[in-house]
C-alpha cells in the first residue's frame, strides 16, 4: 500500500515531496518509525518518504556547543558522537532507534526537559522542504539569533504536517561530570505532591525533577549534576524528609531515570499537562484508572501508561486536563489531540494552508 522511498539528498526528498503533491498523493515522513502510531492512520495510497539516507552529522562545533544534523541521524548515534567531546544534545526521550528529525517533529522529550527545555528550545536553525518544492532555511548555527521568523519552532511538534525537516542546527550542552539522585517515597498522594512542590520551588539547581506513581505508591526523583552534586542531593533529602517522605540518595542513578523514560511508552500512553499544583488530583485519577504515572513535576507534564487501553480513560483525562494520546493500539478510536480552541485552530489551519497548499503532508 505505501511505497517507502529513502531519498539520498534533501533536494531529492524535496523533489519527491513536490512530485507527490503534484499528483495529489498524501505523504508521510518516516524517521526511526518509533512513533508512527501517534498520528492518525496513513490514508490509502499514501507514500512514505524516509529520512534514513539523510543520516550525517554535518558539523559538530565543539567550541561553540553547536551541531548541524541531517534528520535521519539516530539520536543515540548523535549522543555517542557528542559525548566524545564531553557534550550532549539535551533531549532524552525513551526510544532506542528514534531519529533526531522524528524527535523534533513529535516534540518528544524525557527528564532532561525540566532543565533544558524541549526540541523547540534546543533547535537553533532548520531547513525544511515544502510540498510546492520549496527548500528553505530559518535561524542559523549560532545559539543566539533573532533574524527572521522562528520557523523551527513552528515545525517542532508539527508531526510533518507542514513539510519535511531536512536539516537541523542544535545547541549542545556540557555532559555533567557527575550525578546524584535523591528519591523520596510515599503512599500518600498529597504528601508526595508536597515533596515535589518543595523541590520545584527551591533554589536547588536540579538536573531533573520527576515523579512516579504506581499501584498506590509514589516517588519523587530529584537529580543533581555537576562538579559537586552530593551536597545538593543532601539538601534535597532534607526538604523531602521535612514533608514526611522516606528518602534515599543514589549516586549510581542511571537506571532510575531509564525507568522513568521507559514508562512513557506502553499499550496506551496519554501525555497530560496542567498546573503543577494540581498533581494530587492527577495522582488520584491515575490510581483510579490503574495507570502508571511518570512526569516532570516542575513543568506539570506527565505520562499516564494504561495496560488496558480504553477510550473512556482518555475522555476522563480530558476533563480538566490537556491530554494528548501517544502510544495506542491502531483499533482504539480516539482523537489524539482533543479539543483545540476554535480561534487557535482556525489560525493553525491558515498556517497549514500556507505551508502545505496542496494539503498532502499528513
Amino acid at each position, binding site marked *: 500500500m505505501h511505497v517507502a522511498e529513502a531519498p539520498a539528498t534533501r533536494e531529492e526528498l524535496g523533489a519527491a515531496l513536490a512530485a507527490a503533491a503534484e499528483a*495529489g498523493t498524501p505523504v508521510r515522513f518516516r524517521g526511526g518509525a518509533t512513533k508512527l502510531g501517534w498520528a*492518525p492512520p496513513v*490514508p490509502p495510497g499514501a507514500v512514505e518518504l524516509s529520512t534514513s539516507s539523510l543520516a550525517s552529522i554535518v558539523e559538530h*562545533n565543539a*567550541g*561553540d556547543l*553547536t551541531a548541524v544534523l541531517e534528520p535521519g541521524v539516530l539520536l543515540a548515534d548523535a549522543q555517542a558522537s557528542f559525548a566524545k567531546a564531553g557534550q550532549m544534545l539535551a533531549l532524552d526521550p525513551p526510544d532506542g532507534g528514534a531519529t533526531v528529525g522524528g524527535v523534533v517533529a513529535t516534540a518528544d522529550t524525557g527528564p532532561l526537559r525540566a532543565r533544558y*527545555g524541549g526540541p*523547540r*528550545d534546543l533547535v537553533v536553525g532548520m531547513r*525544511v522542504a*515544502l510540498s*510546492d518544492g520549496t527548500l528553505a*532555511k*530559518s535561524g*542559523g*548555527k*549560532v*545559539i*543566539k*539569533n*533573532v*533574524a*527572521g*521568523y522562528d*520557523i523551527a519552532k*513552528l515545525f517542532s511538534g508539527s508531526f510533518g*504536517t*507542514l513539510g519535511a525537516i531536512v536539516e537541523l542546527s542544535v545547541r549542545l550542552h*556540557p*555532559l555533567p*561530570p557527575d550525578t546524584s539522585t535523591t528519591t523520596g517515597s510515599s503512599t500518600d498522594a498529597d504528601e508526595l505532591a508536597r515533596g515535589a512542590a518543595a523541590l*520545584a*520551588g527551591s*533554589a536547588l539547581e536540579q538536573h531533573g525533577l520527576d515523579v512516579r506513581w504506581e499501584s498506590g505508591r509514589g516517588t519523587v526523583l530529584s537529580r543533581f549534576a555537576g*562538579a559537586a552534586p552530593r551536597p*545538593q542531593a543532601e539538601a534535597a533529602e532534607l526538604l523531602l524528609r521535612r514533608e514526611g517522605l522516606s528518602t534515599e540518595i543514589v549516586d549510581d542513578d542511571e537506571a532510575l531515570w531509564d525507568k522513568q523514560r521507559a514508562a512513557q511508552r506502553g499499550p496506551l500512553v496519554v501525555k497530560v*499537562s*496542567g*498546573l*503543577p499544583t494540581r498533581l494530587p488530583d492527577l495522582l488520584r485519577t491515575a490510581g483510579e484508572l490503574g495507570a502508571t504515572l511518570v512526569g516532570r513535576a516542575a*513543568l*506539570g*507534564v506527565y505520562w499516564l501508561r494504561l495496560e488496558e487501553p480504553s477510550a473512556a480513560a482518555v475522555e476522563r483525562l480530558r476533563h480538566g486536563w*490537556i491530554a*494528548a494520546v501517544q502510544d495506542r493500539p491502531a483499533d482504539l478510536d480516539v482523537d489524539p*489531540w*482533543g479539543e483545540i*480552541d476554535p*480561534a*487557535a485552530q*482556525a*489560525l493553525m489551519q491558515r*498556517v*497549514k494552508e*500556507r*505551508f502545505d*497548499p*496542496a*494539503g498532502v503532508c499528513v
Partner: protein
Amino acid sequence: MTDGPLVERLRGIVGTEHVVTHRRQLATYESDGLLQYAVTPAAVVLPGTSDEVAAVVRACHEAETPWVARGAGSGLSGGALPVEDGILIALSRLRRILEVDIPNGRVLVEPGVTNIAVSQAVAPTHFFPPDPSSQIVCTIGGNVAENSGGAHCFKYGFTTNYVTGLELVLPDGSEVTLGGPELDHPGYDLLGAFVGSEGTLGIATKIWLRVVPKPEAVRTLVAFFGSTVEAGEVVSRIVAEGIVPGAIEMMDNLSIRAAEGATGAGYPVDAGAALVVELDGSEAECATRFEHVIEMCEGADSVRVAKDEAERELIWRTRKAAFAAMGRIAPNYYVQDSVIPRTRLTEVLAKIDELAQEHDLQVANVFHAGDGNLHPLVCYDGAQPGEAERAEELAGLIVKVCVDAGGSITGEHGVGVDKKRYMPSMFDEPDLATFQRLRCAFDPDGRANPGKVMPTPRLCGEVPGPYRRHPLEQAGVAERF
C-alpha cells in the same frame, strides 16, 4: 487624514484624551530607541484594555490603515518606528500585573508591564531570567515582540523560553489565545512563531510568563586583561571545561573608559579588556567552580571579586552603563547586534579593528562573550559632514564580517527597519518567501508593522493551489491542526 473618520472612531473607542494628533505631541513617538530614524504617524492611540486594543485594530483593519504597536519605545532596531499616515498603538496604559502564582511559577501580565516589574513581583524567591540592559524601562510586550535576551541568556535562555501563553489581537481585530499557563497545548507551536515576530503578526494583550526560583548562590568577578584576545582565551577555556556561567561579558578598552567615566567603579582605564564572569547555582557547586574560574584568570592583570551584593551591583551597573556612557567617547554611536560563533571571536575582532582604522572611526565593543553576541558601537560625530554615512557603512561591513563567519545579523535587538537590508546576507529568496507564508497566515493584508523585518515589501495573495481536504477529514475521522 489626521481628523478623518478613523481618528473619530478611535476617539470613540478609547476616549478623546487617549488619542494624540497634535503635531508637537506626535513628535514624542516618531522614533524608538534607534534615533537615526523618525517618522510621524497620523495619530497615536493609547488603549486602556485588551478589548480596546481589539477594537482599535479592528477599526484600522476596516479603514485599511496600517498600524504599529509600541511598548516603551526602547528598541534598538526601529521596530516601533511609526508608519507615515498609519496609527501608532502605544500599549503603555496596559500595565497591570494580573496574576502572580508563585507555587506554579507563573505570572500573567499586560504588555506594558516593565521587565523589571516581573522580577520584582516574584521576589525574593523567584525571578524572570531575560534581563535586557534596558530592563528598567522596557516592557514585556516589547520583549515578546523582540524575543529579548540579556546578559544571563547564555545559561537561562531568551524570552521565548519563558512565555507559556498569549492572548493576541490579530491584524483583523479578532482575538485568539495561544497556550496558557499550562505547557503543551495541542497543535502547532504558534506561540513559538509569534515570540520574536517583531509586531508583524499581531499584538499580545495578555502574557503568561514562567518565572523560576532564584539561585542559592551568585559569585561575580571582573578580570582585566591586556587585550580582548587574552580575555577571549579565558572564555574558551571556561566553556571547554563544561562550565556554564550565569553570565559572561566582555568590554574592550573604549567601553571600559566610557563606563568608568559613568560609574567611577575604579576600573583600570588602560586595560585592554574587562571580563565579567558570574556563576550562579548551588552554594557548593558555585564555590567549586568559582575557584576554578579564578585560577583560569591567572593571566589577568588584576581580578576583582565582588565581596557583597553592592559590589556585584556595581559591576553590573558599570557593564550596563556602557551603551549610554558612549556619549563620553563620541557625540553619536551606531550600535550593531551581530552574533558570531564564539570560537571566531579573535579573528572577527581583528577584522573589526582593521575596518575601523580604514574608516578612521572608533568602534567600542561590549558583548555577551558566552553566546558570541557582539555589540560593536560605531562612534561618530553627526555634526561632521559625511561621518554618519561613513559610520553606517562601517556598521554594515561589520555585520557582513559576522555573517561570513557563520553568524547572524541580530542576536537580540531584532531586524526592525535597521537591519532588514542585511536580511539577504543570511537568507535566500526561498527562505524569505517561507517567512512570508507565516506572515500571510496571520496578516494577509500586511497591515501589522509593515516595512519591518522583510527586506522588500511583499504581498500575500491567495493561498496558492487548491487545498484538498483529506478523505479522513471529510469523514470527520481525523483533523489537521
